[in-house]
């Protein structure tokens, strides 16, 4: 893991003082809320439905036990004993007092953490593959590049007042676990014909009210030129991105309106100039950072066989562990999606327990996933049973990774001042409806994602099944969509028809799942069957035969 040097520490400490000063000026009335808002957002502080909410950055989702325990301790001392892991691999606290934030940030800084640029119209936390450095299918480790991008983007003087927020993801594997095609910039490591390391660059993907899949604007940028090239991408956006309409301000709209080839041409032209400015750090800086991500000292000659006589344990191993590149090791995903629970929430005690397990069994390292779970990346297979036992005792052993109950949900109207409907109760009811583990396993991979408004923080556009909560005449209503994906086969889900009540949408999901079970061919996931047979059989099952002629309700704009 990356460790701060005195430069990094000094900068984060300076930010703590800076924000403390800003908070004091707000509390004294020197600043209005309108002036303070962009400053607090750039430090991850929102004013939500019930309180201030503080979003803490977990760069590319990686943290150690000391940092994790600090999150637990803040949850206990300043919040209400829990935290919420987000789809940007961060953590947010829901019950924060403005007057406490300088102290909280000072505590975070003691463990090399901060809330810098976790919101606002700036470059957000760089996200990455939760299996980085452990997966068997990597061209290279994306984390050193994510760290380089983190440093480059922190307090960037030119790009702190962009037209809109800006999200960058970087991966090093063929399999896409970070949704790069749905990012403002997606970077995929690859090698060119000469074996040189570089990146494929996608621009203009995103969800929100106008979901779009990113376009490849350059098939290969040499790694040594990455930062100057990204700088050129951002400069074109900062100058020409729309500022007349907040709903058209993301870079996807600029790329869409110009056309990807024209946007790419403008970037190349800007880059011809920008690359002469000496913005790219030398190889020595990359080497310095990469050394922190050297593979840990994996033991050799470990047993790979495990005792599978306990069926519950065996199911968990099959569902929640993935192949590791080192023999005798596994990647463990700790599910934060218990039946009837709140997706992504963890209590302070659970946070501490996961930290203990990481320290003892996983080289003191954890990853947060964009589907709101926690990964122990380097676990010896012979330790899996001990880990499972500890997780069972803490209510964290739900064996549902990538199954129908592994739901992504935004906080929705229970917490969020932008929401139109609640998301969490829908997730709770669906997990209760599909609680039977045998039934879930039989259904197989099914990514269900719920957003409480059109901003799509719950990624409903990218769900095999997506649910969007809307406000229909003051009442919560839920639209169902099918066919989305955030993986390497990225697609945008389509709305299937008129919306439902909260209970109605749970019933409709169940009908869709049963329709799939009736139609599937061997090996097909829900998504595959849907793509093969189309919407009609699902619509007929959900709305009845009459429903198949019901006009499709367009999303509320």
């Amino acid at each position, binding site marked *: 893991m990356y460790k701060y040097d005195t430069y990094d520490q000094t900068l984060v400490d300076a930010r703590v003082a800076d924000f403390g000063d800003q908070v004091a000026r707000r509390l004294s009335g020197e600043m209005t809320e309108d002036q303070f808002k962009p400053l607090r957002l750039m430090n991850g502080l929102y004013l939500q439905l*019930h309180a201030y909410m503080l979003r803490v950055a977990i760069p590319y989702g990686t943290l150690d036990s000391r940092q994790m325990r600090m999150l637990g301790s803040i949850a206990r001392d300043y919040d209400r004993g829990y935290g919420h892991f987000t789809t940007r691999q961060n953590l947010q606290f829901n019950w924060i007092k403005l007057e406490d934030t300088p102290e909280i940030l000072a505590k975070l800084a003691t463990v090399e953490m901060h809330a810098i640029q976790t919101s606002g119209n700036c470059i957000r936390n760089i996200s990455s593959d939760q299996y980085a450095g452990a997966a068997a299918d990597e061209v290279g480790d994306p984390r050193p590049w994510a760290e380089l991008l983190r440093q480059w983007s922190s307090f960037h003087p030119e790009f702190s007042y962009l037209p809109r927020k800006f999200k960058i993801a970087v991966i090093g594997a063929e399999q896409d676990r970070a949704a790069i095609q749905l990012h403002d910039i997606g970077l995929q490591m690859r090698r060119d014909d000469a074996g040189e390391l570089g990146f494929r660059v996608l621009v203009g993907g995103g969800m929100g009210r106008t979901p779009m899949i990113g376009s490849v604007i350059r098939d290969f940028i040499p790694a040594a030129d990455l930062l100057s090239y990204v700088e050129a991408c951002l400069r074109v956006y900062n100058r020409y991105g729309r500022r007349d309409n907040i709903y058209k301000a993301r870079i996807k709209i600029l790329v869409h309106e110009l056309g990807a080839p024209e946007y790419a041409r403008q970037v190349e032209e800007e880059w011809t100039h920008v690359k002469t400015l000496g913005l790219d750090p030398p190889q020595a800086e990359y080497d310095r950072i990469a050394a922190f991500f050297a593979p840990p000292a994996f033991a050799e000659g470990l047993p790979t066989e495990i005792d599978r006589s306990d069926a519950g344990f065996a199911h968990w191993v099959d569902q929640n562990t993935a192949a590791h590149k080192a023999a005798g090791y596994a990647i463990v995903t700790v599910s934060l999606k218990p039946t009837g629970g*709140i997706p992504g929430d963890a209590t302070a005690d659970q946070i501490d327990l996961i930290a203990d397990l990481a320290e003892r069994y996983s080289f003191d390292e954890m990853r947060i996933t964009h589907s709101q779970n926690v990964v122990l990346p380097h676990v010896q297979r012979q330790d899996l049973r001990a880990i499972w036992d500890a997780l069972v005792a803490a209510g964290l052993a739900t064996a549902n990774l990538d199954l129908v109950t592994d739901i992504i949900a935004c906080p929705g109207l229970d917490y969020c*001042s932008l929401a139109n409907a609640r998301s969490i109760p829908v997730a709770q009811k669906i997990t209760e409806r599909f609680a039977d583990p045998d039934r879930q396993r039989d259904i197989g991979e099914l990514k269900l994602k719920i957003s409480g408004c059109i901003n799509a923080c719950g990624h409903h556009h990218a769900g095999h099944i997506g649910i969007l909560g809307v406000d229909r005449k*003051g009442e919560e209503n839920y639209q169902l969509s099918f066919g989305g994906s955030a993986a390497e086969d990225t697609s945008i889900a389509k709305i299937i028809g008129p919306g439902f009540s909260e209970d109605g949408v749970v019933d409709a999901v169940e009908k869709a799942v049963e329709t799939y079970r009736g139609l599937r061919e061997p090996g097909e996931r829900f998504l595959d069957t849907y793509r093969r047979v189309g919407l009609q059989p699902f619509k007929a099952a959900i709305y009845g035969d009459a429903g198949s002629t019901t006009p499709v309700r367009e999303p509320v704009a």
Partner: protein
Amino acid sequence: MKILTGQDLASGDVTWWTGSGWSLHLFDAVDVGDAGPAIAAAEEKALRVNVPYVIDATQTADGPMPAHIKDRIRAAGPTVHPAFGIHPEIPILKTPAQHENNADAPSEVKAN
């Protein structure tokens, strides 16, 4: 009726205008008639409230009930954490019209 709500600047707590100050309890809210924007502007300037705004509400036997579900949740707390609510008795899903007709809230009301 119209009632005035906002959040405490330092704590972020949701507050309701009582006619002479700010309360954490919805049922202390009073009808502000047309005076809401003026009270809001003065109180915000004095830093006694942050981001105040006027909402529609209905007077019920319990007290004023916001017309919109968002403000009922603001008053009650998150429906998924009833223990954190300060007004657990507020029937979040019961609309003002259902109140007036003394109808029951929809069955899916959480344990609050």
